[in-house]
């Protein structure tokens, strides 16, 4: 029989006191038909921590963060974000909580009928009711400068490269000043140089916005560069956790192939 206990190796996570916990997930389960994608996931995210969830494609990494923001309803389990039990929130309360969570999509998910400026203005106008052109412009330019793309403000998403789209997607979430960032495969499909730039951006976002982040990836170099702590997700369960170096030296048969690259 397989050992289902999570192997915890990180003994000294920065700021890992109980009061610093921003996300708690307990026994989270989700199935699609007969296929169990999440099989009892348990995890905690601490204040200002970059937590990388590493795992093969199809192990439920994206489903996990989509459950966190209410895009997918889990079958069972408990999700607490910033002290709020997600399953007990009304639609209005959920939308208010979502304002504190930034979600960077794998495919950027930029609104392709709008310019970069309109993409960034959209949540400001609709969520915060800001319509003052001067203020909007100031906020848009600040967010774009933070991701190094001020010159792309009037471009359409179709005119941007993959890396630029990711940056604009991140800028669109940053404009609402989130407390938690969720990155879904931030470096997927990018060349190594652009991947490094995105990894640096993830670190600089934490520095500037003091965000706590969950980074979903199967890119080992991204995990190494961005993580404070790594969780190995295997068969819908958190199998092993620790720092990047601890996981690398642990020799776990399910995760070892990642470290060979």
């Amino acid at each position, binding site marked *: 029989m397989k050992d289902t206990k999570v192997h915890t190796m990180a003994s000294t996570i920065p700021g890992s006191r109980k009061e610093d916990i921003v996300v708690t997930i307990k026994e989270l389960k989700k199935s699609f038909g007969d296929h169990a994608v999440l099989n009892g996931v348990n995890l905690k995210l601490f204040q200002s921590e970059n937590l990388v969830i590493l795992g093969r494609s199809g192990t439920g990494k994206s489903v996990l963060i*989509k459950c966190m*923001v*209410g*895009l997918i309803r889990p079958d069972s389990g408990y999700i607490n974000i910033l002290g709020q039990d997600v399953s007990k929130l009304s639609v209005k309360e959920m*939308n*208010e909580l*979502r*304002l504190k*969570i930034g*979600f960077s*999509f*794998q*495919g950027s*998910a*930029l*609104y*392709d*009928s709008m310019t970069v400026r309109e993409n960034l203005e*959209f*949540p400001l106008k*609709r*969520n915060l009711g800001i319509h003052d052109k001067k203020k909007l412009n100031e906020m848009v330019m600040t967010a774009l400068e933070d991701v190094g793309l001020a010159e792309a403000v009037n471009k359409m998403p179709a005119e941007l490269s993959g890396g630029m789209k990711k940056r604009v*997607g991140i800028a*669109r*979430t940053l404009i*609402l000043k989130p407390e938690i960032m969720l990155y879904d495969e931030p470096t997927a499909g990018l060349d190594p140089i652009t991947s490094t730039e995105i990894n640096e951006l993830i670190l600089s976002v934490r520095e500037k916005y003091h965000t706590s982040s969950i980074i979903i990836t199967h890119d080992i170099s991204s995990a190494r560069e961005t993580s404070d702590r790594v969780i190995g997700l295997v068969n819908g369960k958190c199998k092993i956790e620790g720092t990047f170096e601890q996981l690398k030296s642990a020799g776990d048969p399910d995760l070892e192939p990642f470290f060979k690259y």
Partner: protein
Amino acid sequence: MKFRKLLISLAEIFAFLKRVIKHFFLPPYEGREILRQCFLVGNKSLFLITFTAFLAGIVFTKQSRPSLASFGAESWLPSLVSQAVIRSLGPLITGLICAGKLGSNIGAELGSMQVSEQIDAMEVSGTRPFSYLVISRVTATTLMLPILVVYADIVALLGSFMTVNFFNSSSFMLYFNEVAANISYLDIFSSLIKSAFFGFAIGIVGCYAGYHSEKGTTGVGKAANTSVVVSMILIFVIDLLSLQFINLFRR
């Protein structure tokens, strides 16, 4: 298994319809987006409606004229054409054109937004995309179809007048006096209400198909296709039902 799938789909459609009706009355009210969608609805279909309604007016008049002439009732031509155009031809042509033009557009647009996670992105940023994307489109198609139908009726009658004038040199005033004398308020209002239902059906079907589009490019194509086919079928069903209903008043 197929029957179970059908029942699930019906339940989903019913839930979607319920959600749409509920959101009609709930804030946020998307005034600016509704106006933008109304403009797009009119703008996208105006040329095609003008062209087809004008031709339909000519063809119907040319086809009816010999039959009426054979028993000396040529003077009834404006009466026949006006009743046919206002009661059925105008709403039907407009409905079918909008089903093709707008239904496919809404289905494909929302479908590709769904596939590329743009709707999810709106959802997670708390921007309530349902009102923005669905309610605005359904409202726009429901409001614009009656307006487009009135326009199509006028264009078709103009086409008819030009045909009559070509053969008989009839005056504009005489022709349209005949038209006005032979249509009732019931004809006009029933036509407008029926076309509002056409618009509602086109909007709902397009939005449902797009919002529930399957992943991948085939999903988008399927959403566009479903929007057109189902909207067209619904237009004929609504036409038949409204005819049955209005006949109760005519008797």
